[in-house]
């Protein structure tokens, strides 16, 4: 039996998650030793015309053509991994859904707007069945390696379903709310080791919401610190706007 055939594909995104893979350094050679990368357009000219053992998909679905393409990739793949927030939850591309599509196209492309095919941004799992999710903008490499290993071994991987605060506390960061700054850590899925807060910034919610956020607790905190609701809403919409698609489908 040969090494598993793995392919990387990208849709609407910044390709930063692919770059995270290229940035693995020597670890990349170890990974490449265990798999056979058959397609990876950003760094390879080789193409593959058979099925994939694993397809790793980055980016959001934003055009009718992309829907057809992701469906074909799904048909050819035994396992499909969505990696990066654009793929797993729609990510920043979802902000487009804040606007009426006609308006934003006109705003951006003026009278040529009609030449632009665009649909509401959707995450990959909103279009096809996905076997593994690697959240994050960008992905956190230790988690990506964990998922890849699980996928190759046929084992499940469960994304942590507790908040970033859990990891943040372990990292002994001072809570940003105590400094008068809003942070989405309390409602955002952990798994990134509170990357941004460790570096002095806030959590922007790039990994998506926990499945059962403590809404009352959040409301208490927002009231206690007199934070305007529209500020929080705007922040929520930066990465999590696409979750609204789930409600009306």
């Amino acid at each position: 039996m040969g090494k598993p055939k793995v392919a990387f594909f990208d849709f609407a995104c910044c390709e930063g998650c692919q770059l995270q893979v290229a940035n693995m350094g020597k670890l990349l050679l170890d990974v490449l030793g265990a798999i056979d990368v058959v397609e990876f357009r950003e760094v390879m000219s080789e193409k593959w015309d058979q099925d994939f053992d694993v397809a790793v998909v980055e980016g959001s679905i934003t055009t009718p053509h992309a829907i057809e393409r992701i469906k074909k990739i799904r048909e050819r793949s035994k396992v499909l991994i969505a990696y990066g927030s654009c793929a797993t939850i729609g990510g920043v591309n979802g902000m487009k859904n804040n606007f009426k599509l006609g308006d934003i196209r006109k705003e951006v492309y003026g009278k040529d707007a009609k030449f632009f095919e665009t649909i509401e941004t959707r995450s990959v799992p909103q279009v096809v069945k996905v076997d593994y999710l690697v959240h994050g903008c960008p992905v956190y490499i230790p988690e990506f390696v964990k998922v890849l290993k699980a996928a190759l071994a046929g084992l499940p991987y469960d994304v942590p379903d507790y908040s970033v605060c859990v990891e943040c506390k372990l990292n002994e960061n001072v809570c940003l709310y105590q400094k008068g700054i809003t942070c989405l850590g309390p409602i955002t899925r952990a798994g990134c080791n509170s990357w941004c807060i460790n570096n002095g910034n806030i959590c922007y919610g790039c990994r998506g919401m926990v499945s059962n956020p403590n809404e009352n607790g959040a409301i208490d905190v927002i009231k206690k610190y007199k934070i305007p609701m529209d500020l929080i809403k705007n922040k929520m919409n930066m990465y999590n706007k696409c979750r609204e698609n789930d409600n009306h489908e």
Partner: protein
Amino acid sequence: MTIMSKRNVCVNVEYLTRVEGHGNIVVDVKNGELKTCQLQIVEAPRFFEGMLQGRSIFEAQHITCRICGICSCGHTLASIQAAEDAIGFTPSEQTIKLRKFLLHMENLDSHLLHIYLLVAPDLLGVKSFVPLIDTHNKVVRRALRMKKASNDVCDLLVGRHVHPISSIVGGFTKLPKEKDLDAMLNILYNMRPDMEATVELAATLKFPEFERDTEYVGLVSDDAEYPMLSGEVGSTDGVRMNKKDYKKITNEFVVPHSSAKHAKLSRDSYAVGALARFNLNAGKLHPKAKAVADAVGLKPKCINPYLNTAAQLVECVHSLEDSIQIMEDLKKNGINRDETVIVGLNEKGTIPVKPGNGVGAVEVPRGILFHNYEVDEKGIIQKANCVIPTNQNVNNIEHDMKKLVPEILDKSDEEITLALEMLVRAYDPCISCSAHFLDVKFVNL
């Protein structure tokens, strides 16, 4: 006219590989006459400028750096510069030094990726770096080691290279500790032998011979520093303007046969990037970088676009040496940690805000990048515009292709296709950027 030159050639490269983003090359020669010659941008549009409207200027850089994973530090810095210009904030000297350092790391990282992983396979006659793991194992290991080194420095400084965390409007949310300064310096010192080996390797690579005189555009200044983060906008045709007048530089226009907006200044087209910077400012490079330019035979004004890769190599040496100088200087004078900023969305009004219109002009790996924001009295973005290097280069690439194709009609279809792919790749195009910005107009495909 020879029989060969009366031939038909039809090149249609769909989804050009080893470039960032999605682009097609379409060339059609009938009876020896060039009918079509296009670099089509087919990247899915992402509407960033629209998404920025109504958002706080303090989250602009967090959003715009997500336009592109490769140039995310460059977008961050252009975005911050435009934002600070708009609200009237002047960053500290220490902040500027750290930003210049960050820009060097991005330049190093991006150029190394391009030289080793994207261009070298063409020059060594393989389809990607993967076969090189067997045939040139030491080279691949060195490439990955050097890339990782510049990444590790970014990790220490701003949390990560892809979508940097701590570089924001106002300064840095986390400043490097004494041991971080040592660690960064160590990594950079250790990179020197690898850089020497890279220069040796590059000297053995043979680039295609092709020339077309064009205008080169980039930052220029009157001081002795190789301008990356500040200065005015200038060209090899003698243009010099304030960055606020960037629209008079780019003069973007729409052509019916192309999917991307084109730019021109004094002639039909102009080029930005490492070769443009070299042509404008070669005299200001670090002495070690100058020596490398001499060694590889690169002299201003160089008009062979394939040698953009050689100019990137020269810049790698400059970035490594200049960043070591900056870091040694910071270490000697110590870091003023009182400058750490906690901003969030400026809930506490830490940074005073006034309405205004600001422009950022930063030399990122692929050339000069402009960000422009208009904000109201609360710092809410009313209008955003960005002009990215690849958009400025597309027109120049097409003009190169139009001159190149008739010159190589005696070659096989495969050779012509490869020559065109290599030409486009030499510009290191960042097609994600070019379409993620709203400059791209599909007029009629």
